């Protein structure tokens, strides 16, 4: 268990957080690690907050669900309120820059990062915020190799969007380096 | 029934999901989506209180109501 990293990615229905989770898990597998990815499934996933979860480990993962995440990354206010809690002691909450945390919100470590703005301004499309987030997490946590992440991204994104997504990934890495 | 001059278009931003129906089908083009992604009145004088926005709002977030009711 100690060997595991539990990650939760939260956002709104259309933001592609599940894809982000899949990419992280796939990168881990490419790195010969063990990974499980799962997501919340519910009618509310349609419009409102949605989450994807990834567990990355060096050994077999028994229990497949995230209980206390080591890291939560959230792109919207609503998702943050819903899924930002229950972090592991000492866990890290990464939220988009505009999100406000209410008083008394339990989280030892919070960092704000301009993920959406980076996607919009530096890549030109808000829709790649999920890939920026992947880059950010990969670099920040060093859980997966950049090579594998790139491979996973290119294998999963729609044909024709590869350059844009590669750019988004780089921006994510850069962003992480900047806050580290 | 209220007379026309007692009425106005009202918007509930908490319910508005920013679909754009009201904006696009308003015959006088007096609505817009604001930077929070919500519908907003940009030209109250231009509104002819036709009710199109209310009828086509899937979220009951825009309607014609009495000016005094709050």
């Amino acid at each position, binding site marked *: 268990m100690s060997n595991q990293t539990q990650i939760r990615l939260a956002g709104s229905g259309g933001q592609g957080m599940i894809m982000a989770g899949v990419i992280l898990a796939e990168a881990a597998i490419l790195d010969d690690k063990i990974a499980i990815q799962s997501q919340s499934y519910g009618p509310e996933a349609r419009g*409102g907050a949605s989450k994807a979860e990834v567990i990355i480990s060096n050994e077999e993962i028994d229990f497949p669900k995230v209980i206390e995440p080591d890291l939560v990354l959230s792109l919207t206010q609503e998702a943050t309120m819903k899924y930002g809690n229950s972090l592991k002691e000492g866990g890290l909450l990464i939220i988009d820059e505009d999100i406000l945390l209410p008083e008394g919100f339990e989280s030892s470590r919070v960092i704000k990062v301009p993920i959406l703005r980076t996607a919009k301004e530096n890549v030109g499309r808000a829709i790649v915020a999920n890939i920026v987030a992947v880059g950010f997490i990969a670099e920040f946590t060093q859980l997966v190799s950049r090579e594998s992440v790139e491979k996973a991204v290119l294998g999963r994104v729609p044909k024709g969007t590869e350059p844009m997504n590669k750019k988004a990934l780089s921006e994510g890495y850069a962003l992480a380096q900047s806050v580290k | 029934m209220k007379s026309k001059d007692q009425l106005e278009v009202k918007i509930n931003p908490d319910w508005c999901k920013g679909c754009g129906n009201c904006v696009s089908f308003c015959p006088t083009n007096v609505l817009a989506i604001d930077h929070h992604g919500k519908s907003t009145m940009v030209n109250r004088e231009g509104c002819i209180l036709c009710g199109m926005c209310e009828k086509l*709002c*899937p979220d009951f977030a825009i309607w014609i109501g009495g000016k005094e009711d709050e």
Partner: protein
Amino acid sequence: MTSEIVQKYFRIENLPHIWCPGCSNGVVTRALTVAIDELGLDQDNIVVVSGIGCSSRAPGYLDFNTLHTTHGRGLAFATGIKLANPKLDVILIAGDGDVSAIGGNHLIHAARRNIDITTIVFNNNIYGMTGGQYSPTTPTDAKGTTAPHGNIDKPFDIAQLATAAGATYASRTTAYHVNQMVKYFKDAITNKGFSMVEVASICPTYYGRKNKSGSGVQMMQTLKNDFIDRMAYDKLPEEKKAGKHLMGVFKNITLPEYTAEYQRVIEALQGGESNE
């Protein structure tokens, strides 16, 4: 904070609803309350029944006697309610999948019996709730998550099917044509017999995305442009007919109604005493 009509007929505490941005379900559901309001029906006397689907979530938001049943079976439950207490105004809200796929048999039989139930079909040509599989009304060649190579099925004309089965009132309108929709709802509810209003609707999230139909607004625009009254259609020059869909009233006749006929049997046997 919302309009009087919504305050009166909706369960405000359950709003906002779970439907996607731009989904026409809200438009149609609101139009139904306008029709009920204009008819001046007793709110306590109205029963709204549904099966399972996105559209079938509507009853949960409506402040009537509301029943959310099993997928496809709404009309069979509704038939029991109406026969048990014919004084109730019974309305069914159904998706195209609910009422014409798994529920197709109950549809044709309720129509055949001419039981006084008003069926409102939210026809978005897709299974919305389960994520975009093709339905019996998905056009040929369109895509769905279970028709990734293009749909080879022919679509039902639900309103016509209901008519062939015995519905005494059947019409079609769209989620864009709200005034007409309200009128049809009123006519359908007023008809003493089985009535069906098929409302061409939109599912921007699944149908729209899969078929590149554009945003919700664009899909509403398409409804506005592509549907034409059947009378007007007949007058159209041939070259303009292509791609048009018909709306209008397809059937509006009077025939003996099922529960009234049953009442006749009771009366003949026992001189009129019934349990209601």
